[in-house]
């Protein structure tokens, strides 16, 4: 599947949308609070991952600033995605530019720790 075919997914109270502006940007909004996000959202993220590799995209912006809550199962889903990137040979990896709202408690506390899993390929910027 191509990135252009992965424009939108909704699951529970979460909406994920993917669009190209200056870069490809994946926007999370709503709340990720379902029991098992790996059933609905992780397969979508892995499709995006495969398409990024196929289309040789070096940078994906991931905007969490409109996501008001993420539970620890949601964090586990993000960790699974990051591990997929980490398992690639270094030259094949793409980078994530994570956009966050510094006023959000969960974003300002969870995302810097997630970044430590792959610090050379994840950067954090304020929204």
């Amino acid at each position, binding site marked *: 599947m191509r990135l252009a075919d992965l424009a939108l997914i909704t699951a529970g*109270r979460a909406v994920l949308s993917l669009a190209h502006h200056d870069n490809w940007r994946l926007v999370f909004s709503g*709340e990720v*609070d*379902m*029991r*098992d996000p*790996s059933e609905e959202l992780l397969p979508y993220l892995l499709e995006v991952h495969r398409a990024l590799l196929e289309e040789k995209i070096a940078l994906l912006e991931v905007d969490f600033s409109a996501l008001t*809550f993420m*539970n*620890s*199962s949601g*964090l*586990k889903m993000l*960790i*699974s995605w*990051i*591990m997929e990137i980490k398992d690639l040979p270094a030259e094949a990896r793409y980078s994530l530019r994570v956009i966050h709202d510094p006023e*959000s*408690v*969960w974003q300002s*506390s*969870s995302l810097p*720790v*997630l970044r*430590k*899993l792959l610090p050379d390929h994840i950067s954090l910027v304020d929204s």
Partner: protein
Amino acid sequence: MSGHRASVEMDFQPNWTYLPAVRSFVKEFITVSHADKKKAEAIALAVNEMIENAIKYSDREGVRIRLDLSAALSVTVAVHNHAAAAEIRNLQTLLDEINHQPPLDAYLGRMQATGESKDNKSSLGLARIRYETGAKVSAEYNEQEGEVTVLAEFEPPAPTEEGR
């Protein structure tokens, strides 16, 4: 700076659909009493993680949550549920592991472990509470009755120069 002493207790079936309502209520309740939105958001996050655990591991009906807010701005959250003996022992092991490490090391360690795990249980929630909210996390058990109460204690904020 001081708040109002307040407490609230909720008792409900271990059903995921209650979570958004409980999270929202806790946030509003604490904001009214303690007038600190960030602290309220952090405590609501902790409550959500504790109730998710109670629902995932509960082996019968009845999840009970109690919030105690002191006038000195400390907050205690207690979540009570029933669970199988094996789950209670797993919780004891997990809490020992988490509480014997610095909060960031414990959280990062759980993240790395959960990245390698294939089941849908993240076991991240308690380490997350300890690191992200600064709460002291502990549990009380009654293995014979299959009862467990997980506690998160939030200290009052350090006094500022103005407040001294």
